[in-house]
């Protein structure tokens, strides 16, 4: 016993000696936790604001940027500075372009944030609204409502997001239940189950679309993804679904970090893993479903944006989630701008633009940092 007691200070020496120079290490490590993330985040928000203005301003009518700013600012209470602007311009900016830009931004924000959430909850870098069948399930739900001819709106709330949500949540539950092996979710079974469920939903959606002669176009826009029919109505319909879902996800950033260990460790650290996962998957699927119901299925955003953010700013979900939201919005606004300008007057489906622009950028980032190191 005596020998053990005497041995204690000997063992304590090394850490004590390391303490002095470790303080310097500590100073370097600590700021990364909070403060230093703000300038980058504000920069990203500024980029989003700039992309909204530019995308609203650019178009065949040739409205100058300055007039665009005037028109938008005039809708703020107490400001009137658009009296010199032609009324037609006002209508184009306010009724046509701005809703489209904002809807694209909302969709991009939702897909990127949901993608980051799925990746964290499933602890799998390949999870995204597409690959695990959520987006196609949502499209099937929305298609079913469209072809049934049921009224889409009820007391100002749209039924489309609810039907899309039912489809999305069914997909995620089936994929999760099938792919789960014990306590883990292996990549291979997740991808296989996701692809199978997605193929199934896509097949049914195609069948419904072919059977219905009257609604083919609206179904097609859900399947291909497009913002060219965007209105303020669609934007405001989705908000009651998207805002609470985004709030839930953003508030759980720290717990999502703990969940990214594994269920067992999360529980030993005091987090109820099943409840937290259910809450986060529900929120991400609700937001995805709402976005799909108005914008259709748009791929790559949910996969690429969170990984790009992770490569640039690290894996902490408290920074990753809001940053993915802002960058996803910017990305899809610019992609939609490209979709309606590169081949004017024709429009390229925005999903093609996200793939063509996003994938090379993603491959470049991937080449720079191996995926194993960022995940």
């Amino acid at each position: 016993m005596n020998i053990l007691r005497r041995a204690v200070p000997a063992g304590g020496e090394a850490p004590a000696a390391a303490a002095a120079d470790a303080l310097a290490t500590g100073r370097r490590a600590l700021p990364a936790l909070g403060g230093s993330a703000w300038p980058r985040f504000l920069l990203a928000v500024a980029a989003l604001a700039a992309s909204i203005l530019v995308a609203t301003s650019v178009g065949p009518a040739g409205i100058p940027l300055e007039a665009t700013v005037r028109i938008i600012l005039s809708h703020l209470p107490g400001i009137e500075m658009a009296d010199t602007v032609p009324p037609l311009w006002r209508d184009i900016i306010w009724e046509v372009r701005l809703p489209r830009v904002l809807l694209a931004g909302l969709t991009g924000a939702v897909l990127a944030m949901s993608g980051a959430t799925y990746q964290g909850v499933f602890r799998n870098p390949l999870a995204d609204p597409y690959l695990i069948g959520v987006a196609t399930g949502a499209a099937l739900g929305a298609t079913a409502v469209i072809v049934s001819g049921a009224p889409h709106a009820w007391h100002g709330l749209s039924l489309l997001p609810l039907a899309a949500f039912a489809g999305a949540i069914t997909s995620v539950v089936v994929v999760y239940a099938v792919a789960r092996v014990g306590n883990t979710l292996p990549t291979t079974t997740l991808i296989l189950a996701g692809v199978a469920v997605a193929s199934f939903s896509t097949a049914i959606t195609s069948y419904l679309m072919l059977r219905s002669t009257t609604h083919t176009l609206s179904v097609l826009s859900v399947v291909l993804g497009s913002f060219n029919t965007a209105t303020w109505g669609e934007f405001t319909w989705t908000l009651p679904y998207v805002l609470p879902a985004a709030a839930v996800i953003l508030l759980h950033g720290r717990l999502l970090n703990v969940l990214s260990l594994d269920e067992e460790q999360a529980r030993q650290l005091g987090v109820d893993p099943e409840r937290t996962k259910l809450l986060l998957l529900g929120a991400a699927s609700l937001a995805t479903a709402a976005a799909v119901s108005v914008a259709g299925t748009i791929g790559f955003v949910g996969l690429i944006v969170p990984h790009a953010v992770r490569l640039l700013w690290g894996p902490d979900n408290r920074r990753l989630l809001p940053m993915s939201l802002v960058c996803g919005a910017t990305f899809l606004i610019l992609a939609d701008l490209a979709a309606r300008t590169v081949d004017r007057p024709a429009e390229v489906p925005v999903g093609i633009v996200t793939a063509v622009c996003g994938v090379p950028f993603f491959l470049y980032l991937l080449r720079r940092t191996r995926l194993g190191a960022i995940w």
Partner: protein
Amino acid sequence: MSARAVQAAALEVCGLSVAYGERPALRGVSLALAAGELLGLVGPNGSGKTTLIRAASGVVAPRGGEVRVGGVDGSALSPREVALRVAVVPQNPPLPPAFSALEIVLMGRTPHLRLLQAEGGADVEAARRAMLATDTWQFADRRVGELSGGERQRLLVARALAQETPLLLLDEPTAHLDVGHQAATLRLMLRLCRGEGKAVLAAVHDLTLAAQFCDRLVMLHRGEVVAEGAPADVLTPERVRAVYGASIHVLWHPLTGRPVLAPDGGAQ
């Protein structure tokens, strides 16, 4: 002893049975651990050591019996309430490789934080102290994916210390460590028991190591307790041979007088 008896035991396991499907992993295991005590859990592979730690931390539900933590039935507590009382060092668990070592240790503060609360100065200080004690502070801002097996293992001990619980459960905390860090880790556990009155239950493969540091040993075999007591009483040559099925010689440490186990190379 009477003062200790008045206080509730840090950990009480009463008639605990656990099964994975049809296969029983623990059969009627009972043990008690007092504050200030370092208890070693020994036994061959598959004898139920890990299962006992998982059941005691509420990760697997017992089929029978109960686990009392600080006198309270563990199944009546929420995960957060359990995590405020019990910290666990799991055996080789997955860690997301891009997080920094400090970020992983700070996750140990989770039960102390409310949903919207960020880690504050007190949490960083707790993490720093835990990392200094485990000799991990010097790589606080390195990514977990770049650490060696032994460094990861000490990091997990640091995370459990940062949790600041009265009870620590360690599953093979020394498995990937060099001989110096093996001794340092168990010495640290002993210091926590003596100095801060923590209770520590450590599953240790290395019988010699367990015998040098632990106050008492509990030996599991096929899910049952086969021996309990002072290291010298538990690690008798006959029992070691019966349980481990190998020819192991029990010698005596010249300084501590505790058992030292040495296999022979089949020279007999």
